[in-house]
């Protein structure tokens, strides 16, 4: 019998239909992937399942019994736990305090039993072979990836029969992502149901037994994973045929050096990086996470301090802050890692976000010209096909892909021809991913120089002209031509690590 069976599920927010005809069924002991573009209704669906949101219509049966949780606690009581993209952890508490938050083991006095909590934490971490985590570490000291892992531990601490993972791998570096995939298989082997959301087809392929595809708030299909091709899946997700995810890689690099970096160092994370990025080139930056990629991008943009020499279009430059980086055509622009924390004013409009870095371009005699601003905004919204009701829509209400487009638009408006793209497709739906890759190649063809980091290795392999592999804050290897492959990147990153 199905562990979960959903029929005709619907949910409206005011006039917006988030979910209209969702059906879903899954058994215990399987990994069930949930696929769909951003805004397809996946998030609403799992929010309903996890008790965060109540549905308007339709029915859910869990174990054949009617299921309508009033809140996440009620969902957990029925054995359903979720690990969400938006992290729910408390920065001031330790790892273990977060894992057992509100479910702390108690002494007979009713106080928290610290010894028991530590024992249970260690047992949990060991049982599922968690990557190294110190139970007493304060959460605010952890990286985004480590926090995601704590979030997963927190979900597992409830010993759920149904575990929902919402893009849990998107914040994880390759090795940890692999661990998580293994973990889902282990959980399924224990008879649990894992509902798995990911935008990475390779992952879905690797672990899913079955998959359900959502589009526009409704279920369009459910398949046995081995009975359907990638192409069929993508076509069903976007409702049209997507020719290919990765655009054709035409070599457009010239001999002209756009950005030359020499002896670039920053703290202990970046030590003596040298490279040259050419006009018309997409230069990939790969390697295991935490080997200086973040520091390199932030320091080049002036967001953190660094020593060493930078030349932009042949001219020595010093960049002490982002303002000195964003200097028009000869400048350098960054699409940052943290879309919501660094890239977007979520409570401001698409228009205000797009033009924030180029206010000068529509200022006359010290006063803003709304007509000129509107023209800039319209040009960018059209060029990038940003799907917003009006330019006045708040950026925070856009889907992930469209939010990322707004950040691209903001940086393109600065006219900087050296672009730093840090994981620009993270949490972005497959349709928009394709658009972003195409955009990168188009910009390169126009003479832009692009430094591109991705936590998803196939992207580097398929989009970049060359790939620099970072290791311990240095460039361990630069791969070109046929040498660019996942094995090549991992090899350079890991063999070197062993040698060190």
């Amino acid at each position, binding site marked *: 019998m199905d562990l979960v069976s959903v029929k005709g599920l619907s949910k409206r927010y005011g006039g917006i239909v988030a979910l209209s005809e969702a059906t879903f069924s899954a058994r215990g002991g399987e990994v069930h992937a949930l696929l769909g573009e951003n805004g397809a209704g996946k998030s609403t669906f799992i929010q309903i399942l996890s008790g965060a949101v109540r549905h308007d219509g339709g029915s859910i049966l869990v174990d054949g019994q009617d299921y309508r949780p009033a809140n996440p606690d009620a969902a957990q009581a029925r054995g359903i736990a979720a690990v969400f993209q938006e992290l729910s952890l408390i920065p001031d508490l330790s790892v273990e305090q977060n894992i057992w938050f509100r479910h702390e083991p108690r002494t007979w006095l009713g106080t928290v039993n610290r010894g028991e909590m530590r024992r249970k934490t260690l047992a949990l971490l060991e049982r599922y072979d968690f990557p190294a985590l110190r139970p007493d570490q304060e959460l605010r000291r952890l990286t985004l990836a480590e926090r995601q892992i704590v979030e997963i531990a927190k979900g597992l601490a409830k010993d759920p029969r149904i575990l929902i993972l919402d893009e849990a791998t998107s914040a994880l570096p390759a090795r940890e992502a692999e661990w998580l995939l293994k973990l889902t298989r282990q959980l399924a082997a224990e008879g649990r149901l894992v509902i798995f959301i990911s935008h990475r087809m390779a992952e879905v392929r690797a672990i899913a037994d079955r998959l359900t595809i959502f589009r526009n708030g409704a279920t369009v299909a459910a398949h046995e994973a081995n009975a359907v091709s990638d192409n069929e899946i993508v076509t069903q997700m976007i409702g049209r045929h997507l020719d290919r995810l990765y655009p054709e890689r035409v070599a457009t690099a010239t001999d002209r050096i756009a950005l030359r970096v020499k002896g670039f160092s920053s703290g202990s994370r970046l030590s003596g990086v040298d490279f040259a990025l050419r006009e018309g080139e997409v230069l990939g930056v790969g390697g295991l996470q935490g080997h200086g990629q973040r520091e390199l991008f932030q320091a080049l943009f002036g967001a953190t301090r660094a020593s060493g020499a930078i030349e932009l279009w042949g001219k020595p430059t010093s960049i002490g802050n*982002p303002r000195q980086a964003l200097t028009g055509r000869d400048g350098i622009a960054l699409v940052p890692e943290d879309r919501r924390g660094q890239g977007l004013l979520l409570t401001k409009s698409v228009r205000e976000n797009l033009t924030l870095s180029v206010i000068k371009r529509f200022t006359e005699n010290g006063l803003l010209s709304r007509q000129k601003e509107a023209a800039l905004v319209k040009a960018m919204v059209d060029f990038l096909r940003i799907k917003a009701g009006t330019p006045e829509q708040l950026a925070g209400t856009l889907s992930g892909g469209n939010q990322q487009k707004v950040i691209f638009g903001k940086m393109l408006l600065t006219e900087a021809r050296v672009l730093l793209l840090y994981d620009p497709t993270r949490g972005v739906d497959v349709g928009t991913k394709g658009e972003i890759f195409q955009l990168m190649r188009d910009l390169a063809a126009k003479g832009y120089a692009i430094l591109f980091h991705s936590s998803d290795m196939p992207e580097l392999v398929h989009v970049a002209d060359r790939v620099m592999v970072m290791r311990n804050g240095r460039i361990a290897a630069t791969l070109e031509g046929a040498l660019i492959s996942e094995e090549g990147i991992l090899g350079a990153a890991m063999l070197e690590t062993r040698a060190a």
Partner: protein
Amino acid sequence: MSGFLARNRLIVLAYAGMVVLLLVTAMFSPGFLSVSNMRSTVVLAAFVGIVALGQTFVIIGGGIDLSVPWVLNSAAIVMALLCGGQDLPLVWVMPLLLAGGAFIGLINGVGVAQFGVPPIIMTLATNVILQGLILVLTGGSPTPSAPALIQFLSVGRLSGFPVIALIWLALTLAATLLLSKAAFGRHLYALGTSATVAEFSGVPTARTTILTYVVSGLTAAFAGMLLTGYSGQAYLGMGDAYLFTSIAAVAIGGASILGGSGHYLGTVAGAMVLTILTGLLPALNLSSGALLIVYGAVILLTVSIGSETFAGLGGRLRRKEG
């Protein structure tokens, strides 16, 4: 303009509240709506409004300025001392004291933006230091009376209009221009919404922060001089009431106390609401203690009605209906 109103529902709400309050007050105290009474209400509100101008900028930028009481008080007392009741010295005393106010703001701003001192601590410290300096300077002795020119600015009239109301109007136009029509405004809202995003977008965050405190120092010092004209002389503690009212006016005017939203046009309504309240409460024949309690409670209520919390709640309610 309709776009502006749609985006600033809270400002509309503040003006609606002001009108309701006016009508209620008129019910309890007939004659409140008379021309002469409205005129004196506007004059009193102008002092709050002028101090709250700088406070609006600071709060939109994500900070808070607790140094207004003694910047105001210092300007008042130093002006009275330097002028000795004469008009002529005002020619240099006024620019000097405005520069002094701006300088205190500069110190606040640099402390917050460059040295990372939390705004509450930074401005509280300057406030206390100024208080100490003034006590040392005056030894507690009374100051000479205010120059006639400054009295004209604060209580005089030009063809029926209070001069200070005209000054307030001019400042309102200037502030609106800065917030809505200048790059500074865009930078300010971005800064208050997220300092990190603003920094990553190339906004001159340090310069913008410092500028808000400079404006606040300027308006507080200016208000201090005008207030001396209104009361006829400067005295210790004359700025104390303006700490609370300047912040409350901004909040009632619809700005989030956390920064990133609001407008001086809302603060203007906030200043009016606060002043009308002080006119309403005595009409209710309460003891002075009870008066303060009601005053505080009403402000708390008004601020929570005007605050983002309420906007969020309203949004939720509407969604339920829909």
